[in-house]
């Protein structure tokens, strides 16, 4: 415990670590490269694509899915899944809109808070049922998807919230830019940055990874798995509710279809972003980039004058490619570690 230890950070075999970290970072980098490639390829086929406006649109279009992806990542990391997010977006967007419609002068900021609260309530129901009854979250949130959508339908009952009902200051978030960057993208980027940092830097958030990585070991380590998983669902719900408010701000109108089918898009984005569907690893940044990649492809198809009928097939193929790639990478890393170890042992 002498000189070696007092030296700052560097560990015994820094080199090996560097390789491991590089692999981890490679995922985010890889998606970033993919986004750029799609962008460049599209620009080549249609020069008009490369302009500030397009980029703004790419960011705005991906924002909501990226925001949902943040919460979904927190849940999936614990080896659970939240399929109710799409329904939550629809419900919270409509209720917030309805409040604006019937209470003109309702504080704009409270509109966002209301959305978050609605989402948090549903998220906590998801979490409570999953944790207390130990029914798999896939089933719980699938049921909630139905139930919340049903409740939404009963409340909406064929009505719409028209743009005129929504305060201009509320919808500003949907289109204003700051130094050329859409506010919506800034908000989501801040959420990604904050949650991303938190997921690295706090004990409770590391617990989430531990729970997903090895539930048995987590309970042996005395991690309050129930409370943590509950919190993950709560935050996922709250972010979905927030996304509902932003949905309303962006579109300035809402009927019963809002948010329909988002759940699968979000899960796809998250998995494409490198979050392991069985928990334990993945980052919020990756999930957000996954959402951006999917949206970039969607818009690129239109811009490249390819029929938008290709969107879905490409999204599906991409998801399959992503998980297959992850498995391949995992096997390769395991193999290289093993042979390195063998060599180390033999020496």
């Amino acid at each position, binding site marked *: *415990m002498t000189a*070696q*230890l007092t030296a*700052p*950070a560097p*560990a*015994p*075999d*820094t080199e*090996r*670590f560097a390789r*491991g*970290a590089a692999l981890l970072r490679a995922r985010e980098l890889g998606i970033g490269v993919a986004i750029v490639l799609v962008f460049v390829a599209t620009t080549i086929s249609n020069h008009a694509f490369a302009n500030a406006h397009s980029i703004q649109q790419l960011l705005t279009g991906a924002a909501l899915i990226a925001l949902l992806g943040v919460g979904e990542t927190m849940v999936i990391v614990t080896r659970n899944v939240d399929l109710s997010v799409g329904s939550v977006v629809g419900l919270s967007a409509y209720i917030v809109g309805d409040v604006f419609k019937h209470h003109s002068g309702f504080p704009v900021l409270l509109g966002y808070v209301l959305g978050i609260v609605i989402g948090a309530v549903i998220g906590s129901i998801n979490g409570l049922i999953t944790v207390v009854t130990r029914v798999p979250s896939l089933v719980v949130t699938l049921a909630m998807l139905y139930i919340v959508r049903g409740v939404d339908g009963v409340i909406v009952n064929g009505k719409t919230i028209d743009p005129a009902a929504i305060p201009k200051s509320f919808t500003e978030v949907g289109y204003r830019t700051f130094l050329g960057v859409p506010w919506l993208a800034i908000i989501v980027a801040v959420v990604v940055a904050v949650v991303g940092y938190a997921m*690295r*830097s*706090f*004990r409770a958030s*590391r*617990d989430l*990874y*531990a729970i*997903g*990585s*090895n539930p*048995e*070991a*987590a*309970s*042996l*380590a*005395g*991690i*309050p798995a129930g409370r943590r998983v509950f919190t993950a669902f709560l935050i996922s719900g709250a972010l979905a509710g927030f996304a509902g408010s932003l949905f309303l701000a962006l579109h300035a109108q809402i009927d019963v279809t809002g948010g329909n089918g988002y759940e699968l898009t979000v899960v796809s984005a998250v998995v494409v972003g490198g979050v*392991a569907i069985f928990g*334990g*690893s993945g980052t919020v940044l990756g999930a957000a980039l996954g959402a951006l990649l999917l949206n970039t492809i969607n818009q690129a198809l239109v811009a490249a004058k390819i029929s938008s009928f290709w969107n879905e097939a490409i999204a599906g193929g991409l998801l399959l490619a992503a998980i297959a790639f992850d498995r391949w990478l995992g096997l390769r*890393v*395991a*193999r290289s*570690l*093993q*042979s390195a*170890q*063998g060599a180390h*042992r033999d020496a």
Partner: protein
Amino acid sequence: MNHPVGKEPLLVLEKAAKRFGAVRALEDGSVTLHPGEAHALLGENGAGKSTLVKILAGVHQPDSGRLVIGGTPVVLSGPAASRAAGVSIIYQEPTLFPDLTVAENIFMGRQPRRAGRRIDRTAMNKAAVAVFERLGVQLDPQRQARGLSVADQQIVEIAKALSLDAKVLVMDEPTAALTSVEVERLFDVMRTLREQGAAVLFISHRIEEVLASCQRVTIMRDGRFVSTAPIEEVTADSIIRSMVGRELGALFPKTETDPGETVLEVDHLTREGVFEDISFSVRRGEIVALAGLVGAGRSEVARAIFGIDRRTSGTVRVNGRSLRNGAPAAAMAAGVALVPEDRRQQGLVMDMGIDRNVALASLGRLGRFGLIRRGSERDLASTWADRLQLKFGRMKNEVSTLSGGNQQKVVLGKWLARGPSLLIIDEPTRGIDVGTKAEVHRILDGLVSDGMAVLMISSELPEVLGMADRVLVLHEGRITAELSRAEADEDSIMRAATGYAAVAS
């Protein structure tokens, strides 16, 4: 060897009992730990040691009994409560988070923090390095735990327990996978801890380790407390007698047989990164034992022979016919049976009935066109239940309701029902009470007398010595010794298993 007199005991467990369904895992678990002592807990597999450990860990709550820590009676509601009470555990099987770094594994839930309650990674990594220093090992604290060798995993576990600075440190067979240098280091650490006033509960199968490093020894048998004595008052022989409860001879009935023609021939079998260049053969009417430390690759060799894992190279021949790689069904058709190591996960479908479990390996023979005749299924099961003297309520009962020994008989029945010519049996008596143990040994002996070839893997040296006609010792994936029944003894096997001497044979 200071006697812990007069001092208030740190931890007292009295008459703890725990059952799981019909299985009595622990009937009278009692142990008293004083500050500054290393206390050995000995007993055969299935004696209830692991259950006792899990009670101390807060994983299981005893059905009855009393636990006093530091003079206060406590009820441990979970692992967190146990840790809060100052108890730290090193489990037999490492429980790591594969996706997290080594340092995080050590400090999970107690990561060092800096301003704003944020985790201080630099401090954490430093602290991890410091712990490794104490253990005298080099391990990168920032690498992922995924892919660590079993020994390295165990080192991380030990580092985790050390870093807790616990009052009571429980080690459940921590040395099984370690090299002797690492073991020495561990003992040094134990000594330091004791000097600081901590108590260590040490569980091991290596009696000489216990004699060398502990002050008192508690012996358990069949879920019950047998005795506690200062180390000076016991000998290896007396310990073994108390553990087993009878003379060794009765445990290992061994009929002398003349081995017949070769059944199994393994040639240059290799699975990259796991084991290498394994060659041996097993003949009719003999038991060949595969011995070695945990993680030496014994079970993996068996899995590769049976086709559960694919081999990288080499050949396996049974009765002269070469086996297809990675195809258990082909191995079964050739007459191979495998009674696996992990009964609950691999051997049995715990939630299925006895009859269905017995039939599971013989489904194709129970009727025509894939249809199963319930009648023939039940006949098959009751035939084998009779022959193996299975104790059970009803044939339909789930096997999870049976005791460990009877579960093992179901697994045996399942495979014997196929009439195999080669039986591979991995840890034949792990977690089985002594009475049934002898029964299993008698069954094995009978099978060999009738001309079956048996490949046995066992971590229990008495079992290896008592049952095997030949012993192959594995060390880190290679065969380091082949010993005849006459040559094999504890010393020769352990030397080969730890890779010290290439034992002349």
